[in-house]
């Protein structure tokens, strides 16, 4: 598409004052892309590894437990992925609510935006506390 570079672009991220609703909107897209790339790959590999006998499974769990020095980097990535899932789910619910035309009042909208972020962190913490508590 030919664009006249002398003309200004429509205003983008740089000129708006950041608010929770804006952050949540951006997080929704970012976590969606993260879940597509990381989540779908991992889900596919998980199923393939499980279907392919002991050796494939060991390669898979070996990857999950891979450490950079003392830091379990992949496991931390997995925690980030579950956070992305919860964030995307909660902000997705927010979008569904807004799709029916509700929650556009400034205060409500701001509160909902904050709730998705607080909720996603809490749910991630609970999920991993229970999972690691099982000693699996």
């Amino acid at each position, binding site marked *: 598409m030919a664009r006249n570079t002398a003309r200004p672009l429509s205003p983008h991220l740089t000129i708006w004052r950041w608010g929770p609703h804006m952050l949540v909107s951006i997080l929704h*897209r970012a976590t969606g892309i993260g879940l597509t790339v990381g989540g779908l*790959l991992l889900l*596919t590999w998980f199923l393939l590894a499980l279907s392919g006998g002991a050796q494939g499974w060991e390669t898979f769990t070996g990857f999950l437990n891979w450490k950079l020095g003392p830091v379990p980097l992949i496991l931390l990535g997995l925690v980030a992925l579950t956070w992305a899932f919860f964030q995307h*789910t909660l902000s997705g619910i927010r979008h569904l609510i807004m799709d029916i035309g509700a929650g556009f009042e400034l205060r409500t909208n701001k509160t909902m935006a904050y709730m998705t972020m607080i909720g996603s962190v809490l749910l991630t913490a609970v999920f991993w506390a229970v999972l690691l508590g099982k000693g*699996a």
Partner: protein
Amino acid sequence: MTGPKNFGGHERNAIADGKTPLGRVRGLGSAGHGGEHWIKERVSSAALLLLGTWFLVSLLLLPDLQPSTLVGWLSGPFGFVPMALFVYLCFEHSLEGVKVVIDDYQGDEGGRMTWHLVSLFLHVGAGALALFALARIAFGA
């Protein structure tokens, strides 16, 4: 009187750009199918709300995460069926989401078409692979 036929009271506009009302809107979009993508995205999100919760809660409720336990779980009807639906809908929802992202950032029509194709092939390919693996888990190698 010469001139265009009566186009339902829009004669003046019809004369102005030499087009009938139908000619003006042709190719501009929705003819009943325009909402499909939007609805698909939301319906799959509602299903994934249930299935995603099922998936994570199941992981927490399993006695352990040993391969034999996982295979047993996914071989039963209440493991296999939700998991198959979960996998399918994850890929569909992701495909629909990536469509929006491509449309937003790829202004060039040729580039847009290319990326849509790449995304479609990757999603269908990986999704089919995941479903095959699940079937092999459930029905044996």
